[in-house]
């Protein structure tokens, strides 16, 4: 009893003990905050990575793909059907996207990762619908600027929204009016390079067919057949349009039209002659969107502008749903050839993983199959699988490995696909934890030193207690429980402060931003509106108990010293 009483009294009356408590508290609070934020980022990142990748991905070795999606999926079903919740065939192929920016009038070509998907199937293996901009309201700092364009009940598909269709119609009407107002340029006007003249020189083609490169898809005669001008590539279409205006291709100083080879023609695409015309021919053709439809990652077609008046960052979309872009990629032939085609942008998406949002273009699977010459035999390059329970992944992997002939496909979980990134994050967290635990260890040495001081200061009291009959172990337990008390109080305070900090981290961040005058956490950089946090109760528990253990360990040495004091010498101590 006296142990407890003295221990509590010492805790209450020694202000130096406050130093111990504060150091333990700070250590614990820091560890909890850092761990929660790290865990928040990691979980968020893993979710986003995972969502786009499905649980298990079966990929063909090469870009030419594997034949017969239905048969492959049947194989998967047979091998591991009971574990599988959903799967969807996909074509993944790198490509280039060319689009024009109406703000600067520039034409850009950017590398993209094209994914041919079935949106309904894709949505079954991952949350596609949540990412599509048309299903989400437009927000600004949490305020709804514009409600969602589509209701959540509307099934996923490749149709334009009413607004997109309207945009498309308006663009075309404007084009038409513009054309009517414009006097026909004089024949042989050699200025197709200038943007203005390009806009004024749309082709007068009346073909209703979409323009795409039929020649580039040698394995798809159907595609070739549907092409209006078999044997003509996109350039020649448009150049024909120019030619109609200009009577002849030859006056054009561009070498593009004169080069019969496809390769050289492609090389000329960035030339202004081609792209800025693209809305025009489609406008001429139809208000109907083209057969190739795409969802484009937001990062690819938007940029941020700082409003000089409000000093707010604003996102500017260079391509709207309803606009057309040109995609080029390679066919599945051996050797592959370049294929290019126009596609109507149906939507944009934002998964939150900037890596994906600035590289992926989702496209309708059938069209991509057609342009890549893969539709005969239903070729695909990968199957995305979602499991009922991700814990079954090893079993499913093993079953699939047995089912598929070795060497034909690669079967990996999403974690294996992103293995390097994930393990890098894990190592980072582990190192950070070690470093932070050193902080608590430092606090432990502080406790050791301060306890020694307290033992020296209390030497006479120890002698008194012994003269009153207290045992050595009793004296020792006073100081051990003192350490325990410090640890518990410090840890509890640390846990409370840490959890409060985590709970109000965004408010704290706002306050810090306000004080320092600059953004501490720029949500635009991290793609998070708020700092994500995840409090793992086990983490809190182990941090707190680790800190308590260190406090007790640090008090063992001083406590032993106190216990071993000779009572007479302790009494005489001045």
């Amino acid at each position, binding site marked *: 009893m006296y142990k407890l009483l*003295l221990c509590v009294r010492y805790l209450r009356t020694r202000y130096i003990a406050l130093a111990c408590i504060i150091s333990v508290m700070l250590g614990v609070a820091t560890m909890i905050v850092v761990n929660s934020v790290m865990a928040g980022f990691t979980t968020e990142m893993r979710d986003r990575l995972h969502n786009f990748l499905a649980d298990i991905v079966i990929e063909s070795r090469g870009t030419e793909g594997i034949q017969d999606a239905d048969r492959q999926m049947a194989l998967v079903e047979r091998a591991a059907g009971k574990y599988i919740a959903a799967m969807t065939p996909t074509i993944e192929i790198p490509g280039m996207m060319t689009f024009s920016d109406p703000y600067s009038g520039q034409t850009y070509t950017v590398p993209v990762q094209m994914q041919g998907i079935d949106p309904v199937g894709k949505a079954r293996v991952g949350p596609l619908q949540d990412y599509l901009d048309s299903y989400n309201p437009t927000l600004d700092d949490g305020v709804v600027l514009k409600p969602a364009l589509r209701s959540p009940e509307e099934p996923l598909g490749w149709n334009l929204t009413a607004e997109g269709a309207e945009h498309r119609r308006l663009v075309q009407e404007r084009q038409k009016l513009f054309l009517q107002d414009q006097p026909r340029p004089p024949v042989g006007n050699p200025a197709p390079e200038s943007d203005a003249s390009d806009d004024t020189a749309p082709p007068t083609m009346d073909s209703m067919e979409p323009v795409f490169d039929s020649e580039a898809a040698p394995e798809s005669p159907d595609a070739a057949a549907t092409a209006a001008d078999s044997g003509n590539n996109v350039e020649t279409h448009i150049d024909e349009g120019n030619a109609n205006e200009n009577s002849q291709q030859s006056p054009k100083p561009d070498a593009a039209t004169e080069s019969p080879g496809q390769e050289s023609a492609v090389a000329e695409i960035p030339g202004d002659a081609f792209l800025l015309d693209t809305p025009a021919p489609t406008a001429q053709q139809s208000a109907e969107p083209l057969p190739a439809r795409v969802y484009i990652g937001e990062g690819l077609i938007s940029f941020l502008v700082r409003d000089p008046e409000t000093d707010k960052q604003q996102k500017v979309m260079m391509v709207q749903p309803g606009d057309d872009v040109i995609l080029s990629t390679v066919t599945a032939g051996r050797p592959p050839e370049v294929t290019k085609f126009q596609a109507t942008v149906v939507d944009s998406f934002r998964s939150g993983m900037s890596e994906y949002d600035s590289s992926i273009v989702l496209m309708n699977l059938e069209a991509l199959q057609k342009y890549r010459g893969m539709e005969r035999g239903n070729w695909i390059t990968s199957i995305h699988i979602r499991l009922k329970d991700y814990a079954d992944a090893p079993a499913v992997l093993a079953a699939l490995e047995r089912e598929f002939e070795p060497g034909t496909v690669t079967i990996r979980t999403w974690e294996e696909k992103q293995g390097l990134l994930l393990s890098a994050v894990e190592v980072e967290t582990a190192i950070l934890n070690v470093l932070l635990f050193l902080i608590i260890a430092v606090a432990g040495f502080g406790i050791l030193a301060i306890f020694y001081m307290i033992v020296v200061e209390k030497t006479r009291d120890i002698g008194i*207690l012994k003269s009153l009959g207290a*045992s050595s172990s009793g004296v020792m337990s006073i100081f051990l429980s003192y350490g325990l008390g410090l640890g518990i109080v410090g840890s509890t305070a640390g846990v409370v402060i840490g959890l409060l900090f985590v709970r109000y981290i965004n408010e704290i961040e706002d306050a810090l931003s306000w004080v320092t005058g600059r953004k501490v956490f720029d949500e635009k950089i991290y793609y998070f509106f708020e700092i994500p946090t995840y409090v793992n109760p086990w983490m809190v528990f182990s941090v707190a108990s680790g800190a308590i253990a260190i406090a007790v360990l640090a008090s063992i040495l001083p406590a032993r010293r106190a216990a071993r004091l000779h009572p007479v010498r302790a009494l005489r101590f001045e």
Partner: protein
Amino acid sequence: MAETLKMTQPLISAEAITKSYFKGQHKVPVLRGAGITAQRGEFISVIGQSGSGKSTLLHVMGLLDSPDVGEVILDGTRIDNLHQAARDQLRNHVFGFIFQFYHLLPELSLLENVMTPLMIRHSFLGFWKKRREIRDAAMSMIDEVGLSHRLRHRPSELSGGEMQRGAIARALVARPEILLADEPTGNLDAATGAGIMELLNRLNQEQRLTIVMVTHDESIAAQAHRTVRLVEGRIQGVAWEDAA
């Protein structure tokens, strides 16, 4: 036979105690075969110059220290060679100490200080069960030394005499058989010291408390039943004491 033997047996005796301390490499003998015997209810004073070893003799008797040579016998049982736990028990149950510098615990109030020996005696649970009893015992002891108006005060708020009275209350709350007093008036002025001596005498008479008091003050020592003189670690005038 055994009964009569017990009657004549002294309550406590320290026999032929030799004790040396080391100061660095040098062995400093403090006690050279000193011995002292106290009957139940006796009030003995040990007088000697500073450094004569009188405090050490007291510590050896009270089991705070162990002798190099010699024995401490309590009620016919040798106690100086017991193991640590038993020594701790004896200190708590049989001996009560008071010191020149009072040695109250500064963090505790007077009441808590007086309760300390009983808290040490009982486990947490035992204390909880008997808390009222223990409290009452401490209160009545404080009342006996005349400090009931100072229960909640810290030692630093008490005067020297009050602190010594508090220390006496603490020493007696556990109902010890022997009170070992080490210069109880050494730090007090004459009037206060006289008050303390009066209290000790009263306790000795009323409760038949055995007291062994160490002092260097002849007039204080004279108030005891019997005086033992310690010079350089040896008892002087034993023969005279025995004759008396």
